[in-house]
């Protein structure tokens, strides 16, 4: 079965019309009746004791309905159960400039702001910890004494596979360099916002700009100490996330508590400055990496020592700590591999997950070192990479199961289309071409909260009028996940895309989905939606068979892939309620144009006639589909980190101009080969790749969050510069697909993986252009110029 009607064709987002007409409702666009306005008082200190907070004058202001301080919240929270270290409002001490300290709800926004000014906080400033080296030093006053550390170490991971020393001994070239990366931030256009609606029984409906409604739901119940069933979280339209809205946040807890204590609806939104204070961006990183290479053997050994600056709280940091190392296990085999990563607490806004989570900075280092090794070995950096990329169906040394790999063909094509051979090493001084590769997970195989539930579940209904509704907990954050789920349901059921509605990201109405992070939605929620639709198709086929007086087809029990490797080495143990990943739905019928046709006999019936026949018994047509990742991975400590049912692969070839007088770098053109398996929606895939390029180029050339004494110095779009349409080059997308047997219709991720290789590809092109290597981001003109001057002085 391969002639698809809908999947594989470019489809605009199903809600695009609402977005171009201003009808789409984002969180702050909701208007709740009789709503209080909330505001948050934030810490001006990076580190201080709170000796006292006097709220009496604020609460006395007419129109003020409630004032909260840290004393109103007993429990701390965090997205990971292993680091619930963040308070909704600071207690006893503040740990970063901008940390929420008190909050107010009042009849108007102006009153709320006025009340904040009346709150007196008596701070005793203490010496802040501002960088990772300082954080390593012994102290008797760590940021988080409850972890009983004698310094500010949050998490340390060390792993070793094979024998790195022996590997380096086999190498013909070895390079070791130090790299340095500042923090960058998501800079989504919609600031965080939340609105809370409370009913007469004290039940809360929380509208929030979040990527993870399910985690927000759980955290709210815990922090507010109320039953989980009293909370409902709804994600309205969302103005970009990129990982920056993938944690439960203090403001969500604050708004909900204010609703509970006042009995009123509450509205709260961030200023742009608040967004920068809240941050959760990419970790500033200091790293040393060593790579051994031999032309006949490939990479012989790779080792890294990473020091990452987590800021004041945990967020996703434990995962980041692992990802810094383990995501180096692709796109090439690394037979001997060791790393140590340490995440430090500092008195700065916390870092967390950002597009390409944990894998981006190490990828820069490994791909620059790789380039150095290939050049030193006299090899063509593009051809040599093609030769080195993982083969299909291999196990990495840390037991990642690599299944489909479409990048070899893709990069060959990109090499041809970019005229690499005519350009590399042959362009005039100041012009250069460079290449880099990367790989990324399609969802994490293990959940954050250990449980035996499916990784994703979708409910599907079919009404008497033929309307199909997909109920999914997955959060469309602008990437178009609602559209791709609708496309898959429409494909299986043979209906028009317009006939499918999506109800998503509403924790009362939709089954649990863990959220939009780790590039999991298309793969996992997609598989669940596809399976729900297949079950619905079977109900209709059964009804059609009754109408057409045909024997009902027999479905084989879900057969696990024959290949035990594809099964992650597990024996067949699909539960009765799991159809398997990407199962076949060849049933001898054709669903199209409002008809259901039996291919064998040519007999057919109307789609609606089958619906009516099927609905007669139960009165409602409803099915459930889900997705369970295979059991994967080794049994060593930390083996779960980075395990994914499938991996995407990307290569970028980038052409740059470097101004010899100023060091200014301009990207002229990019060619991308991205292996996302089967491109379900080529328009969305292209959009994700172009968006990744924008963000990668920003980190490469200009973006940097600056701090002074812990305070963010560039907390606005004027000072935190992101690339404009003048800097974005044309991107030639070459076909680089594979058939991922476990992805829905053969698909893998496209939203994150393409980012990481952008940055080293630009750096490698700069080397081709002017012969200098840079090891510190961003590749600012002054740094490029200084390196060029140093090179000519030699």
């Amino acid at each position, binding site marked *: 079965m391969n002639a698809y009607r809908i999947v594989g064709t470019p489809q605009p987002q199903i809600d695009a019309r609402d977005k171009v*007409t201003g009808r789409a409702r984002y969180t702050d666009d909701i208007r709740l009746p009789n709503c209080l306005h909330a505001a948050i008082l934030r810490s001006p200190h990076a580190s201080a004791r709170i000796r006292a907070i006097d709220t009496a004058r604020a609460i006395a202001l007419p129109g003020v309905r409630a004032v909260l301080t840290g004393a109103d919240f007993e429990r701390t929270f965090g997205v990971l159960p292993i680091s619930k270290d963040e308070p909704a409002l600071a207690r006893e001490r503040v740990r970063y400039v901008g940390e929420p300290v008190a909050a107010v709800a009042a009849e108007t926004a102006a009153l709320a702001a006025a009340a904040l000014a009346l709150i007196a906080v008596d701070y005793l400033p203490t010496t802040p910890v501002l960088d990772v080296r300082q954080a390593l030093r012994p102290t008797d006053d760590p940021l988080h004494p409850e972890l009983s550390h004698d310094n500010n170490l949050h998490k340390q991971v060390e792993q070793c596979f094979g024998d790195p020393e022996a590997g380096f001994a086999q190498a013909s070239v070895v390079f070791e360099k130090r790299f340095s990366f500042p923090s960058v931030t998501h800079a989504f256009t919609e600031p965080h916002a939340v609105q809370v609606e409370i009913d007469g029984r004290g039940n809360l409906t929380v509208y929030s700009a979040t990527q993870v409604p399910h985690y927000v739901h759980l955290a709210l119940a815990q922090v507010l100490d109320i039953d989980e069933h009293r909370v409902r979280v709804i994600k309205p339209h969302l103005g970009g996330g990129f990982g920056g809205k993938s944690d439960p946040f203090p403001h969500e807890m604050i708004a909900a508590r204010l609703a509970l204590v006042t009995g009123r609806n509450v509205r709260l939104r961030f200023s742009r400055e608040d967004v920068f204070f809240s941050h959760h961006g990419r970790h500033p990183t200091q790293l040393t990496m060593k790579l051994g290479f031999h032309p006949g053997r490939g990479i012989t050994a790779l080792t890294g020592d990473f020091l990452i600056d987590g800021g004041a709280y945990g967020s996703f940091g434990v995962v980041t700590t692992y990802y810094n190392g383990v995501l180096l296990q692709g796109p090439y085999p690394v037979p001997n591999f060791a790393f140590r990563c340490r995440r430090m607490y500092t008195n700065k806004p916390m870092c967390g997950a950002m597009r390409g989570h944990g894998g981006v900075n190490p990828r820069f280092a490994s791909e620059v070192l790789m380039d150095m090794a290939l050049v030193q070995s006299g090899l063509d950096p593009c051809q040599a990479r093609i030769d080195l990329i993982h083969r299909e169906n291999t196990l990495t040394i840390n037991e990642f199961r690599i299944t489909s790999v479409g990048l070899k063909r893709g990069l060959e094509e990109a090499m041809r289309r970019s005229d690499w051979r005519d350009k590399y090493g042959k362009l005039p001084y100041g012009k250069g071409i460079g290449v880099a590769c990367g790989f990324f997970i399609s969802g994490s195989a293990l959940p954050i909260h250990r449980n035996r539930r499916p990784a994703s579940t979708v409910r599907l209904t079919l009404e008497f009028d033929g309307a199909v509704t997909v109920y999914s907990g997955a959060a469309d954050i602008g990437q178009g996940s609602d559209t791709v789920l609708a496309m898959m349901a429409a494909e299986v059921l043979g209906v028009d895309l317009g006939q499918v509605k999506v109800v998503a990201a509403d924790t009362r109405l939709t089954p649990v989905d863990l959220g939009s992070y780790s590039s999991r939605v298309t793969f996992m929620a997609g598989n669940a939606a596809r399976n729900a639709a297949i079950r619905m198709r079977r109900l209709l086929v059964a009804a059609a068979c009754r109408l057409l007086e045909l024997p009902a087809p027999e479905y084989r029990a879900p057969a696990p892939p024959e290949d035990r490797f594809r099964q992650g080495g597990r024996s067949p143990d699909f539960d009765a309620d799991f159809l398997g990943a990407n199962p076949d739905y060849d049933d001898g019928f054709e669903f199209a144009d409002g008809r259901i046709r039996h291919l064998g006999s040519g007999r057919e019936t109307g789609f609606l006639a089958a619906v009516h026949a099927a609905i007669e018994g139960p009165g409602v047509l409803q099915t459930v589909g889900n997705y369970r990742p295979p059991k994967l991975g080794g049994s060593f400590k930390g083996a779960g980190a980075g395990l994914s049912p499938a991996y995407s692969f990307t290569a970028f070839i980038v052409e740059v101009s470097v101004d010899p007088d100023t060091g200014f770098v301009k990207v002229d053109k990019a060619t991308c080969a991205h292996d996302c398996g089967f491109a379900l929606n080529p328009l969305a895939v292209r959009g994700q790749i172009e968006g*990744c390029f924008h963000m990668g180029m920003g980190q490469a050339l200009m973006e940097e969050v600056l701090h002074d004494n812990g305070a963010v110095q560039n907390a606005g779009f004027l000072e935190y510069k992101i690339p404009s349409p003048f800097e974005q080059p044309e991107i030639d997308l070459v076909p680089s697909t594979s058939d991922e047997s476990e992805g829905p219709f053969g698909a893998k991720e496209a939203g994150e993986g393409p980012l990481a290789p952008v940055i080293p590809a630009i750096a490698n092109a700069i080397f081709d252009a002017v012969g200098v290597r840079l090891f510190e981001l961003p590749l600012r003109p002054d740094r490029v110029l200084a390196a060029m001057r140093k090179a000519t002085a030699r």
Partner: protein
Amino acid sequence: MNSGIDGAQPDAGAVRLLSLAVNGQRQQRAVAPDITLLDFLREQLGLTGSKRGCDLGECGCCAVLVDGRPMLSCLLPAADLEHSAITTIEGIAAGTALHPLQQAMIDEGAVQCGYCTPAMVINGVHLFASEPRPDAEAIRTCISATSCRCTGYNRIVQAFERTAERFAEEQP
């Protein structure tokens, strides 16, 4: 340091009666002197299509047409707009018929999260009204008035170019 919603300021000076047209509809409303056009539209008229990304004139998401010219509504005091004609994103489509640029934004995949989209359309509508066949430079200049973090701008440029082609076909 605080954060919150800076909506109507109750005692911040004399409230005055403002009359103006919004999307062709006459409006007479009492406004405080320091309320911005963005707040007026979003909070007083309930027209939430104009987006707030910064409130500082930096992101461009709040653009509306004031007497046909694109302006950042977060920077304009509403009280200064007596007798002006405002067009917001809600007023761009003629009934159910979309402006060609709106249709092109949909078809070309120029819409991801959509938060920048209203302002992109507003600025584009003005561009095509004043120059039906803008060149690549004019298109990029127009688009660069609004920050978009999702798309990398390529599809938006494409949508503008398609629209320019369409206008060229209609009036050769």
